């Protein structure tokens, strides 16, 4: 045994050594970021959970709802929860809101802090209340109280029951003592609050020095010692209550301990998703594993959300990243529920899963657990811990993933409907070094006939990292450069970060200082830190005056050199502070209104892009002729609600296969978290990708909602045309594929904009009852098109196994090879091929003419692809508008449903636009402008054999039909099955307007 363990140790050491040799200096700097044990409140609450677990049966949560305090009216229940702490009773006001949408919300505050009846240490100027403004930033709708919600008669003593939700199918059972809530749907318990008794609200207390245990008369020293240690044991771990140091920074904590925590259980649920952003699997892992355990399916650290500039982040880790969405959904067969933890402070979430048995069977199982053969189901417990602020949780009871995401999106806002250009291809690099360089790249794309829409400028375009300036040496003519881009409807995105250089003769910083618009330090003086420009100050976008000022800075006459086709990139908005604790601001910094940075940290990034969004909106709104143009802002940091303002990307990844692989679950996770406009740097930010990796990354990137190639300043140039053949050709094909499918992508964005649905959708979302697919995160569907994609993410891989969840036919996109679900099928995927299948039963739309940019495709005809599946029917939608302005809000859009019915043998185009939506002048003008845009081709995949020999079909249009019922004939070509490939047919130029109603009769 001994020998064995020694050799094992040696072996491990060898492995470690080899690993460290292979990957020098490309791993995250762990020592820069806290573990739970290094974060006082996390450690305290985990210890609390451990104590509770150890005492299991005897543990009682010290929180109780005072029955006498309960009031209920108009969907709102109020009351006071008390906490017993020694001799003290802490009063915690409770509200439980029941909204029309079927969402319930539990909010707990602390009376003493609410009434500002506390003292701050160190003479701090911070606010005394718990932070209560997260709602102001994150919530935009869905908070109409339900008039139908009602307390239930005949409730048991010691609990209050409220019936609410659609047709009264939801129920909240509020237990008084210990306090807890169970949420039921159709009588089944789906979500439980404080079921494990881990709820914790660290109440305010004055700092007292440790009581000296005096020696009692007649007591021995031993007895005194024993009493002393008893005092320490009884009390909590106070070591981090009043002060906490990490990495050379000390947090002064003027309000003392104030964390909140709650356990939320999902009985019967095996999978949980969400808690973006983490580099790990879509289905979240358990987090209570041993730190050096062999079991890699469990983390030893909780999922952390504390927006950070994590340099060279690692794969498969619960470590925090750049943004946070504290929204989690749980999945079991036929049910999905969600919780949204509205708190912007540092937050940790522990996840554990236990096998449990169906409730009614418990007794029997206990009698004879083996013989009964009761199939156990998994229960997932989560433990949420935040450093400060309110305990504020929303519960969505599903039952479908779409229901949950939609309710969440109703609260925090739907994703912005982006401009068409922004869902096309973006070419970025740190840095295009001169305006001539930019012009040259622009010309090269045209020369190689590679489409692109946007070229980006990283920080080097500025004069000495002073934002709103241009380096006069390298960018002497920004407007001329942008004019060249505009000739082919291309755009420029320039970076502007929240740190403002602290340097004389820089008007921006002078205004920032003189108007007092920057973040303050704990002494309430301007906070100075270090970032790209060196010594810098940070705009405080929590300050309304600062936001107004920021909005003014983007006017064309202030940001000289910016043009109508200039859009924005906000980076470093976690905020990243090079010399700050964990590369960000000290937590005791002060924002407008006296809020400490600890309270608002995770919102910081959102406030900046919010201000930039407003700035871009107001920049273009001034001209009466334009009804405003939809802003485009890319952000690195985000919070719940950021989706309203723009796109995000997954930050500074690496040019390595594992990073390509990780990008897929990360983007899927963003999609189900209400922020689907997401992408990863194509090619990988750090390092030089091999040509194979670059090519595969473009193929995957062509299916990212946000599609941008980017590279670090120390990497070699890698614009697609530099790769050489066959790579450049293959990459161009991938880009052209993205462009040809833009109509379908845009339709998916519109769906996200109106329903919150993800743009790329994981298996569990599309096939909610299919348990086999719950953990699947390497393949996805594009919107509602039925396109199923599984990018190749491994070196040298020439084939791909794709999982088909449903009993349906699938067809290879490129050669119509036919597959039959359910089950796993193998698809050939040599380098030039992207594994893309078309699911039977769908219609999707593309534009096949390659153009230089998406703007130049505006007037091109459409091709419809009808994919006939097992039922013989197919259906799909198309949404079209001008792709840039807000006229669509006045009805200036086309929204069609295309349906093929085998029973009638017809393909119909029906209007999905709201009745009477096209009455405005803008709507009419738009529809007139689109009159000539036609359908030029209809491809029918898996066309019926009965069509063999058919040469013509009959086209009837709305217009013709209303006049005289006239129809005309157009040609059709039918092509029979070959080997494993489906039959197909093409209708030749039906020439029907895309915005009009029409019918094509295949039986005529």
């Amino acid at each position, binding site marked *: 045994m001994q020998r064995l363990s020694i050799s094992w140790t040696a072996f491990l050491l060898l492995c470690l050594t080899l690993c460290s040799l292979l990957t020098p200096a490309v791993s995250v700097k762990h020592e820069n970021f806290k573990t739970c044990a290094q974060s006082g409140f996390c450690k305290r609450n985990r210890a609390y959970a451990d104590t509770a677990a150890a005492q299991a049966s005897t543990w009682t949560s010290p929180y109780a709802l005072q029955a006498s305090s309960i009031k209920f009216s108009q969907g709102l229940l109020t009351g006071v929860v008390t906490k017993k702490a020694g001799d003290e009773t802490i009063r915690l006001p409770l509200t439980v809101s029941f909204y029309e949408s079927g969402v319930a919300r539990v909010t707990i505050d602390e009376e003493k802090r609410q009434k500002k009846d506390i003292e701050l240490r160190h003479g701090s100027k911070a606010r005394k209340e718990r932070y209560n403004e997260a709602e102001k930033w994150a919530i935009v709708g869905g908070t109409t109280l339900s008039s139908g919600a009602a307390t239930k008669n005949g409730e048991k003593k010691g609990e209050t029951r409220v019936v609410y939700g659609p047709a009264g199918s939801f129920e909240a059972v509020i237990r008084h003592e210990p306090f807890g809530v169970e949420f039921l749907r159709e009588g089944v318990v789906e979500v439980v609050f404080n079921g494990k008794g881990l709820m914790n609200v660290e109440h305010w207390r004055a700092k007292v020095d440790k009581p000296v245990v005096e020696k009692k008369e007649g007591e021995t020293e031993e007895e005194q010692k024993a009493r002393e240690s008893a005092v320490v044991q009884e009390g909590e771990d106070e070591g981090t209550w009043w002060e906490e140091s990490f990495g050379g920074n000390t947090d002064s904590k003027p309000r003392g301990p104030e964390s909140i925590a709650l356990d939320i259980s999902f009985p019967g649920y095996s999978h949980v998703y969400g808690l973006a952003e983490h580099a790990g699997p879509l289905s979240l892992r358990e987090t209570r594993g041993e730190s050096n355990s062999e079991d890699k399916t469990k983390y030893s650290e909780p999922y952390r959300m504390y927006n950070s500039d994590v340099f060279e982040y690692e794969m498969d880790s619960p470590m925090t990243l750049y943004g946070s969405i504290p929204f989690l959904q749980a999945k079991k067969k036929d049910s999905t529920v969600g919780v949204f933890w509205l708190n912007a402070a540092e937050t940790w979430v522990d996840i554990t899963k236990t096998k449990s048995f169906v409730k009614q069977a418990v007794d029997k199982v206990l009698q004879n657990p083996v013989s009964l053969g009761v199939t156990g189901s998994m229960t997932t417990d989560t433990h949420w811990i935040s450093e400060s602020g309110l305990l504020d949780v929303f519960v969505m009871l599903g039952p479908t993933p779409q229901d949950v995401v939609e309710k969440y999106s109703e609260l925090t806002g739907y994703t912005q409907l982006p401009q068409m250009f922004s869902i096309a291809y973006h070419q970025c690099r740190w840095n295009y070094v001169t305006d001539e360089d930019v012009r040259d790249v622009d010309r090269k794309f045209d020369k190689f006939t590679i489409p692109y829409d946007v070229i980006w400028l990283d920080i080097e375009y500025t004069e000495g990292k002073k934002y709103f300036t241009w380096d006069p040496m390298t960018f002497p003519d920004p407007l001329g450069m942008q004019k060249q881009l505009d000739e082919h409807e291309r755009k420029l995105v320039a970076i502007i970060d929240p740190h403002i250089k602290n340097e004389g003769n820089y008007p921006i910083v002078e205004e920032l200082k003189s108007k007092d618009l920057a973040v303050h330090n704990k002494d309430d003086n301007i906070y100075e830190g270090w970032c790209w420009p060196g010594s810098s100050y940070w705009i405080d976008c929590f300050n309304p005056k600062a936001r107004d000022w920021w909005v003014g800075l983007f006017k064309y006459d202030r940001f000289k050199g910016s043009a109508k086709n200039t859009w924005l990139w906000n980076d470093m908005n976690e905020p990243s502070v090079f010399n700050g604790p964990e590369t960000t601001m000290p937590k005791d910094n002060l924002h407008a209104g006296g809020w400490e940075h600890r309270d608002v940290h995770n919102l910081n990034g959102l406030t900046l892009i919010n201000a930039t969004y407003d700035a871009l909106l107001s920049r273009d709104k001034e001209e009466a002729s334009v009804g405003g143009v939809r802003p485009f802002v890319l952000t690195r940091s985000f919070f719940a609600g950021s989706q309203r303002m723009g796109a995000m990307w997954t930050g500074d990844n690496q040019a390595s296969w594992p990073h390509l692989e990780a990008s897929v679950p990360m983007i899927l996770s963003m999609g189900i978290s209400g922020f689907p406009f997401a992408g990863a740097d194509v090619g990988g930010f750090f390092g030089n990708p091999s040509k194979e990796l670059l090519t595969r990354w473009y193929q995957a990137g062509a299916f990212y909602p946000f599609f941008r190639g980017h590279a670090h300043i120390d990497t070699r140039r890698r614009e697609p045309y530099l790769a050489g053949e066959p790579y450049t*050709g293959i990459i161009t094909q991938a880009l052209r594929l993205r462009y040809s499918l833009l109509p379908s992508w845009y339709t998916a964005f519109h769906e996200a904009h109106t329903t919150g649905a993800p743009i790329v959708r994981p298996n569990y979302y599309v096939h909610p009852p299919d348990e086999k697919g719950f953990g699947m995160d390497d393949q996805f569907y594009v919107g509602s098109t039925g396109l199923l994609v599984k990018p190749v993410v491994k070196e040298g891989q020439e084939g791909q196994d794709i999982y088909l969840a449903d009993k349906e036919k699938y067809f290879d996109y490129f050669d119509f090879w036919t597959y039959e679900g359910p089950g796993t099928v193998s698809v050939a995927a040599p380098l030039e091929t992207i594994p893309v299948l078309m699911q039977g039963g769908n219609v999707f739309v593309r534009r096949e003419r390659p153009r230089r940019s998406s703007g130049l495709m505006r007037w091109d005809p459409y091709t419809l692809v009808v994919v006939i599946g097992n039922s013989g029917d197919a259906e799909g939608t198309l949404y079209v508008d001008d792709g840039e302005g807000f006229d669509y809000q006045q009805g200036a859009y086309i929204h069609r449903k295309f349906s093929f019915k085998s029973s009638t043998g017809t393909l119909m185009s029906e209007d999905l636009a709201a009745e009477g939506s096209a009455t405005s002048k803008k709507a009419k003008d738009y529809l007139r402008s689109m009159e000539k845009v036609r359908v030029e081709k209809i491809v029918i995949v898996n066309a019926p054999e009965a069509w063999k020999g058919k040469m013509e079909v009959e086209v009837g249009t709305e217009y013709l039909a209303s006049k005289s019922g006239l129809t005309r004939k157009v040609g059709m070509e039918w092509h029979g099955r070959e080997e494993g490939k489906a039959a197909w047919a093409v209708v030749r130029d039906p020439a029907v307007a895309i915005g009009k109603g029409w019918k094509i009769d295949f039986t005529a």
Partner: protein
Amino acid sequence: MRGTRSLVVLKLALLTLSSAEANRPRGVSPEFAKYYKDPTTFTCISNPSVHLPASLVNDDYCDCPDGSDEPGTSACSYLSPLSPITPPDIPNNDNINTTIALPGFYCKNKGHLPAYVPFTNVNDGVCDYDTCCDGSDEWAGVGGTKCEDKCKEIGKEWRKNDEARQKALGNAGKRRKDLVAEAGRLRKEVEDRIQSLTTQIEGSEIKVRNLEDELRDVERREKGKIVRGSGQRKTSRINILAGLARQRIDELRDTLIRVRQERNSSKDRVKELEAILSTFKEEYNPNFNDEGVKRAVRSWEEYAARDKPSDGDAAHDRDLDAITQPDKENGLDWDEWEDSEESLDVDVLYKFEEYLPVPLRTWLDQKLRDLRIWAIENGMLADRPSDSGESRAVSDARNRLESAQKELKDNTDSINTHREDLAKDYGPDDVFRALKGQCVSTDSGEYTYEICFLDKTTQKPKKGGGDTGMGNFVRLETIFVDEDLPPDGKGLGSGQRIAMRHENGQHCWNGPNRSTTVVLACAEKEEIWRIVEEEKCVYRMEVGTPAVCEIGGGRREKGRDEL
């Protein structure tokens, strides 16, 4: 000359245009007009088996697998190996030729040069005036696009520029002639120099031979001389010397010990510093892109990569240990030396001599001398200790020889250099010989870039700081370029161009040693047009010079190829 030719071509083009214009479908050039003559049926150009009703030509739907039925629309623009193609995208897909048959949409450009516009650019809402000045590429007026005919002004402007270009070309041609003449003169200079050096070398060689003989004689004479009668008094002097040497060696040993201690402590400090720097290199965050930090890391990497003084330290230290031992332990007993009597190996010879008569003694003396030289020369007898120095006569003779040898070597080196130079590739007509060492520079962004022909390329920061070598000249190459020529003609154009490779410039952070390819094209004078960093630290300079005019530096005029 060029000017007139292009005018003729233009006139011809205009003539062809007016005659064929009437009955060609939109977008068809005179070259392809013959395929579109049949008024009822159209036959796909590359697929003669596919026939269509003529009404399907230019109906904005792609019927021919080679796209030839849509010469005037973008309907077939997706037919390309760069597009994702699915089965129905290729019409009539049975053993057919899918290579696109037409070079593009033909713009007549009346008043200017006709040209082809890529089909992807037809009716996309953008007037592509740079190729299609008559605006006919946007004939459908999609979304209200209107492209007026601008050929008159564009053509006029082009002709004006073309005239200037031709004039410049003419001047450049003249300058090239001058350069070639200058190169010839320089070559002649070299050849003349080789000639005179050859004569000089012959002379030097004779001189060296003579001096070698002289030295041999002098040495022979001198070796026979014997220092005599100095033996007796040596004892006491050696004793004194030994005493002094002993003192000196003690002193040296002490110093050595002290220096060694100092060295060891310095070594430790260096080791410590190196450790600090290695950690620094591992742990710094390159994402923060602090130039100061990067410079430091870069210098460290260069330092660390350099050959370290061989670490023969162990052996070296053993030597030092031995050296610093007391002398006795090294087998050196000073006392013994301070008292010893010295005897010389030759004494016995001289003593025997004294008893002989003078003539015999002289004769014997001579013989002994020869014997001694013979013995010395054959290694049987030690040569005279050198500390007594060479005799003046020998050293003078040696100096004379050495200086003659040096002169010969210098001349030989010089002639070799010149011969190599003559053999070197100075491009066609040896023309670059005239540019050698000439430098031109230009400002670009925050740097001034300089090329010194056949020498090196340099980047000089305007904001101060040291110059960066971007490479040293290694050879001439020919490369293919394909660039649009700007109206002023200052660009590479398309075709084979002479390029100068520069390698082994300053090492690059996270990259290779800097290198530059200087691509040359014809211009009136030497000037840098453009500098691009094609890849990390791989630069390309586009440079104009008359040296390459009409020899692969000539440029394509816009629109010419399309004719």
